[in-house]
């Protein structure tokens, strides 16, 4: 993965802001008018969830929402350029998700590279910063990591599969109020 792309990403997700526990957000950020694109994404996603629910009713909420997300990922990504390299695919993916989710590749300090090989698995850590699912869950007082998060999993996996032609899997490592850490496992 080229250093330029990684630096560009890290710069985009760095600020000089000091964030204190007692900071209570008093307004929507960004302004509601700028959220139209996001809302369209939510509506479309919800439509697909319901359609998928009808298709496979009774097989558990996670299976349904994962499938809905994956369909969405495949559908949107089919118009994007096909490529085999993971770096390029992640670039395409961030364009694809713009307005709904944003993420950066991440690694713990003891790892040398962003593509990590461990216990026979090849994976990349992704930190999801902006996320419509997290917003929806927090708006409704619901826990993170449940069925609605599966839509994002499906979405990312579907899009990566569509762009690279490779099978992939996404796992939750941690969910937080400001960012979530996920593991993109490449097969």
């Amino acid at each position, binding site marked *: 993965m080229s250093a330029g792309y990684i630096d560009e990403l890290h710069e985009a*997700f*760095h*600020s*000089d*802001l*000091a*964030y*204190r*526990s*007692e900071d209570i*957000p*008093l*307004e*929507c*950020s*960004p302004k*509601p008018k700028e*959220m139209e694109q*996001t809302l369209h994404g939510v509506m479309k996603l919800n439509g697909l969830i319901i359609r998928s629910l009808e298709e496979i009713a009774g097989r558990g909420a996670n299976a349904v929402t994962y499938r809905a997300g994956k369909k969405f990922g495949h559908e949107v990504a089919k118009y994007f350029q096909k490529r085999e390299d993971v770096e390029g695919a992640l670039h395409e993916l961030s364009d694809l998700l713009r307005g709904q989710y944003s993420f950066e590749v*991440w690694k*713990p*300090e003891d790892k040398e590279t962003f593509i990590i090989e461990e216990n026979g698995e090849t994976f990349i850590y992704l*930190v999801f*910063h*902006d*996320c*419509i699912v*997290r*917003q*929806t869950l*927090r*708006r409704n007082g619901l826990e993170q990591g449940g069925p609605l998060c599966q839509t994002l999993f499906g979405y990312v996996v579907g899009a990566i599969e569509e762009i690279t032609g490779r099978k992939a899997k996404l796992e939750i*490592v*941690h*969910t*937080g*109020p*400001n*960012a*979530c*850490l996920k593991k993109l496992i490449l097969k």
Partner: protein
Amino acid sequence: MEIHVDKDACVGCGLCVKDCPMHVYELQNNVSVAVRPNNCMGCLSCHEICPAQALEHRGVYPARRHYIDIKVCEMLRKVI
């Protein structure tokens, strides 16, 4: 990422040590110390869990907040 723990506010409960998935904190003499700040990915779970509001992160990317209820905030602004 720069992480500052307010030593006077910290009550040494260790919740941030337990909750942080990246093992950023350690308790030293009953006060939390950010020993691995470079491992922080900015989830801010520790802010949510700290009962003493003793933590400050500098350099964190604040995620978009769509869940804020504008009407409630307008009311809050009148009373705060």
